[in-house]
């Protein structure tokens, strides 16, 4: 015999203002099997929860209906309270009388009636509830970190430091990411490599971190706590176990003129190369697209000079599988290349700025390399075309950012700060030089950020002009920057020696593909989506997959590092448990009636449907039916809606529960 208690919450005025809660409680007690009902100002408060616990004991309740806010908010709270009173938590259901009623109506009488209806429906439904227990799944206490930039390194170090194994996968030949290319970092102007390289080395040497560079994630199967990852270790053409990193091959390589990725095309590198001197690992890679041997079958100079016989022209991509329990995605960003026409037709580009046409019109990362002591000019500010010191430099912000008509709607966030830094670095190195910055707004929210920009303006005398640039063109060896000063309302024309464009931060070109491999959502720009922008900012909606750094949206270094540690702590929360407890709200197949059309498998977004062979006692195959992997199933119910014969049900939302809930209306 079901003994149901109904608890009506006022939610302060949220419900109480539109729904007459005492009347609702009085009506609820009249419903069949309801033996107790009461209303209270805040049911979720401690006294409110205690009322439920007491009522369960005093009235021997075996089911509880709480009429309150959305189950999203407090279902867990009330189920826990019930569990504390000795009731199975799944014998507690919420009737949503806030979002579904009080918030969307204003007529008290009708809203009150509707609240009673909603409760009656839930009461009818709960009669078909049955006790459920959490599903327990084992956890592989090892993490995969995708991306070896500062975010990935930080996340890997944090997890490794807590005593768990980490697989760190980086697609480039060295870890370090974009941070290794930067000269100084805002707002403290400390040398980027000086603070980064110790971290790189620490990650490389850490006994708990296994590093795969020049590698990519090919495939991911499984689910939270139990992922199976396939890593493609691309052919480096150098045997890592033999190479000592002496660098002789790099010196002797006859190809000298391949554009250096690390120097953003401002310098050249050989066909066999280490991206930069502090690269980790310090093992060269052969760029097969430019190597003479791979193009003509002749040369082998590197092989001849290598004393360790480490060169392997035959090397092939290697596929490695690893079992991991958590995945941290830290794949970073790319700068929007404005000279190339975007695949996205909405992004029209900025041909009028002459990027790609004039050698001295460069982007932010190129300026970083020019300003960097490890760069092609050894830190001296020289313009690319004639290696002369530019006396007048114009910096243009928001090239592609905040521009719905030609670029992207979003703000790239870091450009205001790095442009101020660029202008400041330039002024520090070229004392008699002039620096101009065209900006839309200065967005310098952050610790010490606004002070930094003020310093650029006030102490280093960088000239900030509020306005857009319409055109950059060459005239007698100068670059004429035509713009508008919108504060004084006059057109501006500057004869510059060099122009630096703060181009938009965009997602990695392969971001969407990786998201599909991982099964995580991404936005229209290719940035990965978090579950909740405020309360769950580093979790993807796929359990066990976390986000760090600029792959989620434009981020600066402090934010990326904070996010990485946050993501690492999320993985550690998972690893802190022996078994994973999952809500038992998962799909279940009726094997008697399933005919194996597998439409459920086709529609399942989580790959949770598997094939199961049904055999008779003699071992003969009778039929093949669908079967649910309860570790993967997220309880979305799409399979239920699709199954033509209703042979798959969601436990906790089964046919009878829903049928009688509807019927009560």
């Amino acid at each position: 015999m079901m003994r149901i208690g109904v608890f009506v919450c006022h939610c302060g005025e949220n419900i109480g203002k539109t729904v007459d809660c005492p009347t609702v409680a009085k009506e609820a007690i009249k419903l069949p099997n309801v033996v107790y009902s009461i209303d209270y100002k805040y049911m979720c408060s401690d006294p409110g929860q205690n009322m439920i616990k007491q009522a369960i004991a005093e009235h021997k309740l075996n089911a509880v209906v709480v009429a309150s806010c959305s189950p999203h908010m407090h279902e867990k709270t009330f189920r826990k309270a019930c569990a504390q009173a000795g009731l199975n938590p799944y014998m507690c259901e919420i009737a949503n009388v806030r979002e579904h009623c009080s918030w969307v109506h204003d007529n008290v009488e009708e809203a009150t009636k509707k609240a009673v209806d909603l409760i009656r429906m839930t009461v009818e439904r709960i009669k078909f509830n049955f006790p459920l227990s959490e599903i327990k799944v084992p956890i592989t206490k090892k993490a995969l970190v995708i991306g070896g930039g500062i975010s990935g390194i930080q996340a890997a170090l944090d997890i490794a430091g807590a005593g768990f194994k980490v697989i760190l996968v980086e697609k480039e030949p060295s870890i370090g990411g974009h941070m290794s290319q930067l000269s100084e970092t805002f707002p403290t102007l400390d040398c980027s490599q000086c603070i980064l390289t110790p971290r790189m080395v620490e990650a490389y040497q850490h006994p708990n971190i296994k590093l795969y560079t020049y590698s990519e994630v090919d495939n991911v199967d499984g689910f939270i706590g139990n992922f199976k990852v396939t890593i493609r270790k691309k052919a480096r053409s150098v045997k890592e176990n033999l190479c000592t990193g002496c660098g002789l091959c790099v010196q002797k390589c006859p190809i000298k003129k391949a554009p250096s990725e690390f120097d953003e095309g401002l310098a050249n590198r050989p066909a066999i190369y280490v991206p930069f001197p502090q690269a980790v690992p310090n093992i060269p890679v052969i760029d097969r697209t430019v190597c003479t041997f791979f193009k003509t079958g002749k040369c082998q100079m590197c092989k001849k000079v290598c004393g360790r016989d480490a060169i392997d022209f035959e090397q092939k991509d290697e596929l490695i599988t690893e079992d991991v329990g958590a995945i941290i995605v830290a794949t970073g960003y790319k700068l929007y290349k404005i000279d190339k026409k975007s695949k996205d037709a909405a992004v029209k580009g900025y041909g009028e700025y002459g990027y790609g046409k004039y050698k001295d019109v460069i982007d932010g990362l190129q300026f970083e390399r020019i300003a960097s002591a490890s760069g092609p000019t050894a830190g001296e500010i020289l313009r690319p075309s004639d290696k002369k010191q530019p006396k007048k430099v114009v910096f243009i912000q928001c090239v592609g950012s905040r521009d719905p008509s030609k670029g992207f709607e979003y703000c790239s966030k870091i450009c205001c700060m790095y442009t101020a830094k660029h202008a400041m670095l330039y002024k520090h190195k070229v004392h008699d030089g002039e620096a101009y910055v065209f900006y839309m707004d200065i967005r310098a929210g952050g610790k010490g950020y606004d002070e930094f920009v003020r310093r650029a303006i006030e102490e280093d005398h960088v000239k900030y002009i509020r306005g857009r640039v319409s055109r950059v063109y060459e005239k007698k060896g100068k670059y004429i920057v035509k713009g508008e000063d919108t504060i004084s309302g006059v057109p501006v024309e500057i004869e510059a020696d060099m122009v630096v464009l703060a181009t938009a931060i965009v997602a990695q070109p392969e971001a969407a593909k990786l998201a599909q491999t991982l099964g995580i959502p991404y936005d229209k720009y290719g940035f990965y989506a978090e579950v909740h922008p405020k309360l769950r900012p580093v979790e993807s909606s796929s359990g066990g997959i976390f986000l760090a750094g600029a792959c989620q949206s434009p981020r600066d270094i402090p934010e990326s590092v904070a996010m990485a540690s946050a993501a690492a702590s999320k993985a550690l929360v998972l690893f802190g448990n022996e078994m994973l407890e999952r809500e038992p709200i998962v799909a279940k197949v009726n094997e008697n009636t399933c005919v194996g059309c597998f439409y459920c498998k086709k529609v399942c977004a989580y790959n949770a449907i598997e094939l199961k062979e049904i055999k008779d006692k003699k071992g003969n195959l009778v039929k093949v039916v669908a079967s649910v992997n309860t570790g993967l199933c997220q309880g979305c119910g799409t399979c239920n809606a699709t199954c033509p014969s209703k042979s798959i049900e969601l436990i906790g939302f089964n046919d009878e529960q829903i049928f009688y809930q509807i019927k009560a209306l």
Partner: protein
Amino acid sequence: MADIISIARGVFENKKADILIGYTKATSEGRTRPVIVRSADEVQNLVLNSSCLNNLATYLTRKENKGKKVAIVAKGCDIKSIVQLIAESQIKRENVYIIGVKCNGVKRSFEGEDSKKIAEKCLNCNVRTPHLADETVDMSDEGLTGKDEKAELIEKLDSMSAEERFAFWEEQFEKCIKCYACRQACPLCYCERCIADKSMPRWVESSPTKRGNFAWNIVRAFHLSGRCIGCNECERVCPAGIPLSLLNRKMVMVAKSEFGYESGMSADAPTLIGTYDLKDKEEFIK
């Protein structure tokens, strides 16, 4: 070209199949009926002509035929349902030997005026030469002609208001006697326990009431959307004369116009339900 009898004999002599599903003469003049032939000695009664209306694919999923290697006489439209059955894991391609019929159209009905007209589904047929077959057989061209009256009706229904359309279907479904002949004839209604027979809880009322009739016919139309290949057997066998093709053909039209999808053409093609594409139209979401 060889006739159906010699092909069928070859099937058994060369051990291509354990049984053969084909057509034979029925007792009434001008009718045919399905027949299951089990040996070369029984093949002489097989026939193949424009009165071979049944879609024999519906017998492929019958329990008694499971696990057997089955040869089947199939017109292009029937082959579409075989393709769909393969795509939906109900049969294996290697277990079915398809004797594809090069067909110029069948009669609209066995008797009456309609027996002189070509079936409406044959008017816009794109598989007169079978698209999946192990061997083919010719069916004589009897020069049947006719108008696509249903196409005109669909257009008329489209131009109606929602209320008018509802009234139209109310009148049609009023006739339903819940005999489930539509389901039994349909090659794609292969569920062992139909939702209409589910009793705990009973989603579809079993008695032929207005509500139950609506529930049944609408559920069936939805279950066939993106799957129906338009053999039109449901409408042909309906004893109450409900124009079910109006529903099914409309669904097929929508699948084609909105998603560029046509069922029954390839067993490897992704199914309509279960395929998500960023380019999918969303205009129907209001």
